[in-house]
C-alpha cells in the first residue's frame, strides 16, 4: 500500500497515524514477523522496519541495543528483504537504514529490492537532501517514497528544500538528540509542527512513548506519530512481548485518534 493512500484514508476518518518502528531481526527474523502482526493488531497504520547498521549514529542506547541483537541474530540485507517479503500485512511498510547499507548494495538494486518485498518508503537518517540526488532519482523511477527529516534547528529555507524533495511524509524530529523514549512533549515540537506548512503529511518522532503524548502531538497539528524506542524497550525485556506490543500500540493509536 502507498503511504499517501494510507494518509488519505486516515484523513477521511479524521485520525492521526501511528507509525511503529522496530528493528528487523531483533532478536530473530521469525520474532519480527510475530511482532509486526501484534503491532498491526494493536492499530499501527504504518510499520517502519529498521535494517541494522553497525554504526547507528542517530540512535540512542535503546535502538542501538536492538540493532546489536539483530546483527547477532544474523540479520543482513538479504535476510531482511526475504523476511519483509514474507510479511502478510495490508498497510504501508517503510525501511529505515543508514546510507552505507544502501550504498554498498547498490542504490538501484536496493530500491528494486524494496519494491519486490513490498516496501513503499525509505528513511535514511544520515542522508540530508544535499546528498540524496542519486537515490532520489531511483526512488522516483521505481515509485518509492524517499522520506526526509526536519529538525528544530532546520531553517525556513531548508524546510522548503526538504518539502520539495521529500515524498510520503515529512519526519519531524521532536527534539535535538538521538532516538530514545521520553514522557513529555517539548515546546520546540509544537513550534516545529507550526513552522512546517505543507500538504505533505507531518509525522513526529523521537521520544514519544505514551498515548498522552501522542494525543498532544496530533492536537498540535501533526498527522502522525512515530514511536520506536518504547516498542524496542518491550522487545528488550523479552517478557510477554507480542501482547505488550499490541497493548502499547493500542494506547498510542487511541491517543492519535483524538484530533
Amino acid at each position: 500500500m502507498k503511504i499517501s493512500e494510507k494518509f488519505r484514508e486516515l484523513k477521511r476518518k479524521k485520525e492521526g497515524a501511528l507509525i511503529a518502528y522496530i528493528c528487523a531481526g531483533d532478536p530473530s527474523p521469525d520474532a519480527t514477523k510475530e511482532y509486526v502482526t501484534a503491532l498491526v493488531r494493536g492499530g499501527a497504520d504504518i510499520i517502519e522496519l529498521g535494517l541494522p547498521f553497525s554504526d547507528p549514529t542517530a540512535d540512542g542506547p535503546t535502538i542501538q541495543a536492538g540493532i546489536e541483537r539483530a546483527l547477532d541474530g544474523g540479520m543482513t540485507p538479504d535476510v531482511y528483504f526475504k523476511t519483509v517479503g514474507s510479511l502478510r500485512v495490508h498497510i504501508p511498510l517503510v525501511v529505515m537504514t543508514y546510507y552505507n547499507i544502501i550504498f554498498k548494495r547498490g542504490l538501484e538494486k536496493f530500491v528494486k529490492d524494496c519494491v519486490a518485498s513490498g516496501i513503499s518508503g525509505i528513511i535514511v537518517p544520515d542522508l540530508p537532501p544535499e546528498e540524496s540526488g542519486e537515490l532520489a532519482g531511483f526512488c522516483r523511477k521505481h515509485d518509492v517514497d524517499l522520506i526526509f527529516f526536519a529538525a528544530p534547528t532546520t531553517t525556513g529555507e531548508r524546510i522548503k528544500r526538504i518539502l520539495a524533495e521529500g515524498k510520503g511524509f515529512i519526519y519531524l524530529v521532536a527534539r535535538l538528540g538521538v532516538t530514545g523514549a521520553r514522557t513529555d512533549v517539548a515546546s520546540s515540537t509544537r513550534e516545529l509542527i507550526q513552522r512546517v506548512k505543507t500538504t505533505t503529511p507531518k509525522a513526529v518522532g523521537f521520544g514519544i512513548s505514551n498515548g498522552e503524548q501522542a494525543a498532544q502531538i496530533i492536537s498540535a497539528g501533526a498527522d502522525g506519530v512515530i514511536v520506536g524506542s518504547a516498542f524496542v524497550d518491550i522487545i528488550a525485556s523479552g517478557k510477554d512481548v507480542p501482547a505488550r506490543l499490541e497493548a502499547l500500540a493500542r494506547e498510542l493509536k487511541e491517543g492519535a485518534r483524538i484530533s
Partner: protein
Amino acid sequence: MKRELKSTKFGKYGGQFVPEVLMPALEELTEQYENYKDDPVFNEELNYYLKDFAGRPSPLYHAKRLSKEYGVKIYLKREDLVHGGAHKLNNTLGQALLARYMRKKRIIAETGAGQHGTACAMAGAAFGIKTEVYMGAKDTVRQRMNVYRMELMGTKVIPVKSGSQTLKDAINEAMRDWVANVETTHYLIGSVVGPHPFPTIVRDFQSVIGKETRTQIMEKEGRFPDSIVACTGGGSNAMGIFHPFIEDDVDLFAVEAGGSGMKVTDKEALHSATLCTGEDGVLHGMRTKVLQNKYGQILESSSIAAGLDYAGVGPELAYLADIGRLKPCNSMDAEALDAFNDLCMLEGIIPALESSHAVAYVKKAAASGDLGDVVVINLSGRGDKDLETVMGMRK
C-alpha cells in the same frame, strides 16, 4: 582555497552524510571558518598560541645515525616536541579558538590514543572552555596515562562501552552528543575526517607542519625532499605535512597500520589499512574508503597503535590515492616495534607507535630506491604514552 570550501567534496569523496539536525551547524561552521581563516586578528592570536604555548616551529632534525643505518638521508619533522607530545595540538588550538570566536560554550571530542583528547584538554584549559572527551572503554585502559592527563586539566573523560569500544565508537558517541547539544557545543574532531567542512579545517590547521618543513628543508638542503613519509590513521598529520607540497615534485607516502596481517573476517580486520584495502563507503558523515563487509557493516579494525586503529580515513587522502598523488602503504605491528627500537637506540628519541609505522616503512623502502635520496618523516608524536604497551610486548 575559497572555491574548495564551497565544494563539499574531494572528487567523489567527502560530503555531508549527517542527520538533518546537524546540517545548520555545518553550514554555520563553514561560514564562520570562511570568515576567520584569513582574519588578521584570529591568525595573530592563533600564531601566538602556536609559538608561545605549543612551542612551534618544531625542529626539522637530520637523524644522522638512523640515516646511516637505513641507507637514505632522513630528516625528522619533530612534532613529538610540540606541547602535549603530538601534532594534535595544532588542530585543537585552531578549532578551540574558532569555537571561542563562534561563542560556543562547550567542546566535545573523540579520542583513540588519547593524544587528541589530551590536546583538546590543553586547548580547553588554556581558553577556559568546558571540555568533554569520548573515549572507547578499551582505549581508556590501554592509554590510561592520557586519561589521567586529561582529567588533570579539567576535562571529563567519558568511556564508551558500545560496539568495539574503540575510536569509531567514540566518534559515534561524540556525534550523538553533538546532535543533542549542537546549539551550544562545538565538536572538535581530531583528524581530517567527518562531514565537510571538518576535513578541510583540520587539514588547514595542520598545514603549519608542511609550511615549516618547506622553509626548513630549503635552509638545510637548498631543495625539497624527494619524498615525505607520514603515518595515517584518519590522516591529519599526513595531510598537514603533505598539503603544502601537493603541487611540488615530492613523492608522498601514507603509511597505514598493517596490524598483525591482512586477514579480514565478516566482523573484523587484523589491520587498519583503509587506503590500501578499503572499499568505497559512507562512515561518520563522509564518503571515503572504509573497512567493511559485503553488506556494508563496518569492520572492527586493529593496530598496536591506538591512534591508527580506525576503519575509515580522511576523504582527501582517498581522493589523492585514487589520482595517484600519494602512495598508500603499510607497516605491520612487528615492523613498527622494530623501528621504534631503532629510533630509541640510534637517535635517543622515543617515538609514538603511530609514528613508528612511518619510520618502519622508510626502513623497508629505502633499499629499493623508491624514496630517493632525501626523505622527511613526519614524527607525529612521542612514545611516552606507549611505554606500557611496548614493555608488555618485550616480556
